[in-house]
């Protein structure tokens, strides 16, 4: 999911940084000071969840939960994901400094777009509709993030085309599992603490 340092070209890095700045700007404009502890703690939850390894076939993958993040936070997911990625870069050297913009955009943008559109259906009366919406948020975020990662690589150089294809393929099983997990998490939260799902 992360693109490491030194891979992307200058133009792609700048585009990523610019787009992320816009997204984060919109995000913090929607963010009240009252909500900062809540968003800060949620981004800490996503940070911790990314350390959880789940079995996928013979290998294992870590949780991303960007879809869940977009669903719960809307545009605020942009600054939350930026903070989470900065912490990962600083503490574990995952992702990186120059790629922070591109990585933030690749992960946050699909999550936010799905969160503010399809995500609105999570409070629908009909369980089939809302569970489908949750699945689309979880799985779609990973799918589109994978496509954006592949696109970033491809925009850097045509030689990255096979690597881009590999990235998309690798995202498919993770996508299905993330979709499932998002449905389970949201349905659990609905039973236990429905206030989290109601728009603040």
């Amino acid at each position, binding site marked *: 999911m992360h693109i490491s340092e030194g891979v992307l070209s200058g133009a792609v890095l700048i585009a990523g940084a610019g787009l992320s700045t816009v997204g984060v700007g919109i995000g913090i404009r929607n963010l009240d000071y009252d909500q*900062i502890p*809540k968003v*800060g*703690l*949620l981004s*800490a939850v996503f940070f911790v969840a990314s350390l959880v390894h789940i079995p996928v076939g013979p290998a294992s993958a870590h949780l991303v939960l960007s879809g869940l993040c977009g669903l719960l936070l809307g545009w605020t997911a942009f600054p939350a994901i930026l903070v989470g990625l900065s912490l990962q870069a600083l503490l574990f050297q995952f992702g990186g400094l*120059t790629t922070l913009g591109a990585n933030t955009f690749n992960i946050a943008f699909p999550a936010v777009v799905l969160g503010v559109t399809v995500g609105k259906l999570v409070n629908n009366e009909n369980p089939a509709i809302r569970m489908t919406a949750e699945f689309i948020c979880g799985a779609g975020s990973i799918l589109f993030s994978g496509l954006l990662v592949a696109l970033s690589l491809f925009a850097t150089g045509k030689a990255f085309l096979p690597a881009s294809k590999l990235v998309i393929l690798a995202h498919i099983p993770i996508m299905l599992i993330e979709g499932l997990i998002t449905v389970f998490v949201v349905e659990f939260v609905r039973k236990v603490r429905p206030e989290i799902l109601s728009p603040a």
Partner: protein
Amino acid sequence: MRLAEFSYGDSFIHRMDPRSKIVTAVIFSVFVAVNNSLQVCALALVFPLVMLGLGRISFVKTLRRLGAINSFLVILWLVLPFSYPGDPLFTIGAWTATQQGALMALMITLKSNVIVLTMMALLGSSSIFSLAHALTHLGIPEKIALLFFFSYRYVHVINTEFETLSRAMKIRSFKPNMNIHTYRSYAYLVGMLLVKSFDRSNRIMAAMKCRGFTGKFYILHHYQMKRMDFLLPAVSGIFAALIMVVR
């Protein structure tokens, strides 16, 4: 979870103004990331190594962290030499590796390691709190700095809760496998973390309001740039210029 383990130390790198370290790290990383010469990347490696040495940062721990990053690059080495057009290097079956492709993979590996080592030496040698503090001085929006503070402050707390919950799962003989039960259990684990954090954040907000929080983040400790602190950006700038010339 061992976080920010390099930030405990008392070398002159550790004592340096975090603002100067951030600015230097960012500019040097961008310089390395956008250049397209193998020699420059190789020479640039000297800078973080000297900084790590000056900061007396454990060589073994640094290497262990580099191992984690380089495992990401393995996939690149498997693909790139075969997909990059150029002169053939060797052939496996229908696949031909090219010299240019291998050099490209080598350059990316070098860049990645140089930038990560620079980050470890310069940013790793400051605590996360002083970095966030320095970022507010450098003009990032206050809300981002606050978010950063809260997130980092509670990562440990939430991780402890996560460990408690996973221990409880283990005691009940939970074995992760590839089935719905596993995914549901992990989802409930995450759900429980969300619920606990949501409740905690409400308590924090209430406590902060009781203490008169109005959204302003007061900075009590102001940084003062000393002569030494201008040295770092200057030295790295001269170094970058030098390797461009030497090449």
